[in-house]
């Protein structure tokens, strides 16, 4: 950086640097702190006897299809395997809904809308991005659940109060929509105009150009938006837990069946619990962080592969 001094700093400056460095190092250490403390507490149920109840079996925890076999506060037979699958399933299913809508909205804002309208639409996206998740959950419960309930009934299906997969997917899709739209829009706007002109000069129509060239050239950025949206969907807690129905066994895939995620299970019954049933939530938290981390890693690897090959 150009403005960095090359001459030696004065005494006061080196003191300032040292003091500010402390702030920097503390800020940087929070992620370490989070990982460390939560892992320590999350591992505890597996390696202690939990006040005489016996330790939680790690393999069962990772693979079982029932949240808790046996009575609460007595049994330690916890299983979160189905939660991992459900969490991923719901996040990707919601992306199926939010991705096309978000990308096409971005395309409209960046390429079709006249300036004032584009500015307005950007405002819409920003506003949507700043709506807290609890509000999405509320609208999910109040607006979508009755609709889903009626829909299920009219299709001759059972749906307990409308809770479950479809509700979660809709809420998550609405929440990740602004993320996908905003990031896609930036990368669509960044597409080299000469590519689009080349396409038009070849006699392609503006529509063909937008879908064949613009979106193709912006795909890396669009993919990043999708990765971010998935991350957000995997970690979303309150809104999901309000519409999930909190299935205690699974995996559930049906659109009208009740469902649950790692986060909704962490929140379920939090008000009235202690002991192992409380501590196990930290283990689920650790699991959630690992799932998010791995998903990000895998998707970023795919992104790099896809980014380099043009077929």
């Amino acid at each position: 950086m150009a403005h960095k001094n090359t001459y030696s700093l004065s005494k006061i400056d080196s003191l300032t640097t040292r003091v500010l460095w402390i702030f920097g190092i503390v800020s940087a250490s929070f992620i370490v702190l989070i990982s460390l403390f939560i892992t320590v507490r999350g591992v505890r149920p597996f390696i202690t006897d939990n006040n005489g109840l016996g330790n939680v079996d790690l393999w069962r925890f990772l693979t079982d299809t029932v949240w808790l076999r046996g009575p609460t506060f007595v049994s330690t037979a916890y299983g979160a395997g189905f939660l991992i699958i459900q969490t991923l399933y719901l996040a990707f299913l919601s992306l199926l809904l939010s991705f096309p809508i978000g990308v096409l909205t971005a395309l409209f804002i960046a390429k079709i809308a006249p300036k004032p309208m584009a500015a307005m639409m950007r405002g819409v996206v920003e506003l949507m991005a700043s709506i807290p998740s609890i509000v999405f959950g509320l609208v999910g419960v109040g607006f979508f659940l009755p609709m889903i309930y009626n829909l299920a009934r009219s299709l001759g299906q059972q749906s307990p109060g409308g809770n479950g997969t479809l509700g979660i997917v809709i809420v998550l899709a609405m929440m990740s929509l602004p993320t996908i739209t905003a990031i896609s829009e930036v990368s669509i706007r960044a597409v080299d105009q000469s590519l689009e002109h080349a396409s038009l000069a070849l006699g392609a129509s503006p529509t063909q150009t937008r879908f064949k060239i613009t979106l193709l050239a912006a795909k890396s950025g669009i993919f990043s938006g999708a990765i971010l949206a998935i991350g957000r969907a995997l970690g979303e807690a309150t809104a999901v837990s309000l519409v999930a129905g909190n299935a205690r066994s699974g995996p559930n895939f049906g659109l009208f069946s009740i469902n649950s995620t790692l986060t909704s299970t962490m929140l379920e019954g939090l008000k009235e619990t202690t002991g192992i049933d409380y501590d196990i939530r930290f283990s689920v938290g650790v699991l959630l962080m690992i799932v998010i981390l791995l998903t990000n890693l895998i998707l970023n690897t795919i992104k790099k592969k896809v980014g380099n090959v043009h077929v």
Partner: protein
Amino acid sequence: MKEVFYVENLSLYYRDFAALKDIQLAIYKNQVTALIGPSGCGKSTFIRCLNRMNDLIPEARMTGCVRFDGEECQVSGYDVIGLRKKVGMVFQKPNPFPMSIFDNVAYGPRQQGLKNKEKLKVVVERALKQAALYDEVYDRLNDSALTLSGGQQQRLCIARALAMEPEVILMDEPTSALDPIATQRIETLIEDLKKEYTIVIVTHSMQQAARISDYTAFFYMGELIEYDKTDVIFSLPKHKQTEDYVTGRFG
């Protein structure tokens, strides 16, 4: 000689700024026409009038008349897409699409609805051969076009335009981003292409205009100062401004 384009009283304004003033010229079939002049003289704007790429600039306003194959092509209702199919364009910087070499060349025909794989193969091969690129890429047509060198990319862009089997190819400073060897290959290519195509080329280099063109138009401050056979422009210019420019006294 047959006129492909006939331009009459063409003026173009960006808001209040006149980028082209009352241009009048004809572009002849199977000839290379070079447009020269200092930066900002309007030569690029002019070339973009020929395939109506200036339509993309909302503030641009045009008066006058451009005839393509005898038909006025600047009126509303004229088939712009049809015009652009017949008038190909190569841009200043090589701009291959982020897809495979094959898909780049096949892009134009595909957008026109050509789906048959065998036919596409024939079209792509012919275009690449015409652009003198086939020998260098025939074994890696499915590689990304972005793996090619700059000069190869520009020839790919020419092949992409040729795949549409146009009548005219517009080239907007096609060699300005290339090294001398790649430039020379493109120039040779232009010589070859002249037999089948009409070429309009914008260039900054007087030598290039002198080497490859049959006709040269000198633009200055949005006006067409002089338009004649290339040897006339370079040996016996009628206007002092032209002489000053081609002899390198300014610009």
